[in-house]
């Protein structure tokens, strides 16, 4: 059986998995699926079979607006010499938890 029809007809979805309560959803990959329910089901089987998650988001890839790799220098380089913005000069109390 060919995988062609699926790849041709089914849109691409980006998959985000939250690993446990209190942590954020993280991008973990993408897959082709016919609709959101189908995408959720396949994401469950592909990305959470080793207990990786407690929650899944799927987002149609075409709805994600991405920065242009060409703009990398103008977008991100200006931050490189401003280390005073990093929270490394004070201690975070343990009670704060994940930041």
């Amino acid at each position, binding site marked *: 059986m060919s995988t062609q029809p699926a790849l041709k007809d089914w849109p691409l979805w980006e998959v985000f998995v939250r690993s446990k309560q209190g942590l954020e959803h993280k991008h973990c990959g993408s897959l082709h699926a*016919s609709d959101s329910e189908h995408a959720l089901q*396949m994401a469950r*089987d592909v990305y959470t079979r080793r207990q990786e998650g407690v929650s899944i988001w799927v987002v149609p890839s075409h709805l994600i607006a991405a920065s242009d790799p060409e703009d990398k220098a103008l977008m991100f380089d200006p931050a490189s010499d401003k280390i005073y913005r990093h929270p490394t000069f004070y201690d975070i109390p343990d009670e704060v938890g994940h930041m």
Partner: protein
Amino acid sequence: MDARVKPVAASTDYLLHLADNALVLGQRNAEWCGHAPILEEDLAMANQALDLIGQARLLYQLAATRLNAEGRTQRPSAWPAGPVTEDTLAYFRDDRDFRNYTLQELPHNPGLVPAAGGTRDWGVSIVRNFFYAVLMEMVWERLAASPDADLAAIAAKSLKEVRYHVRHARDWLLRLGDGTDESHRRVQAAVDYLLPFTAEFWAASALDAQAAQAGVDVPALRADWDRAVDAALQEATLARPPAVDGWVPQGKQGVHSEHLSYLLGEMQSLARAHPGATW
């Protein structure tokens, strides 16, 4: 449930019936590994096969513990020496000893499904999984309150798994039934072929009396099963074939189709050629 209910040990035969159902379907579904229509479904089917084999292992372990406790010395000569283990029960019993429904052992592409193509038909596998999972969701629900505490614990674990199996199979049933002309034709052929095999669910037998003792009256589940299946078929734009009276499969009584011995031949040959082998 009444807290004063006396603990009851489910019969070993009934445990083996539940275990054989899970193992044989798990073995069948594992045949999709590396061959499913798409990668994600390959994983989905293999995940479910592993759920089923995991259920079978727990049930065989429980049955083995109880057989050993009985201390019976008369055992089939083919069984390896020493205490009975899950492997004895899975690998050293012959087809006539297996108590699974005939439905479980049928190939994915029986020659009797004229519309099926290739060596496996996804529609056949989906319809079978759906018919069985709908039944087992109801069975595990009831066994989760079984007076046999060990069986109740296995049921509680299996219930979560089977709920996903129902969702997966039902979802595909709708997609294939309400999909293209070809998918509709093929999944309808699978329904027409497999539905008569479900008659075995409701045929009363000694095993069902043992099931009732363990906490589930299986033939009494028929109306609920019919409702769930009819609703899904209707939503999938599929027709329910008219009921056929007469022949009822007898797999649960050890009288199987020709397909089971081939399946067991493949599954058991390694363990029998090298008893006790490990890696």
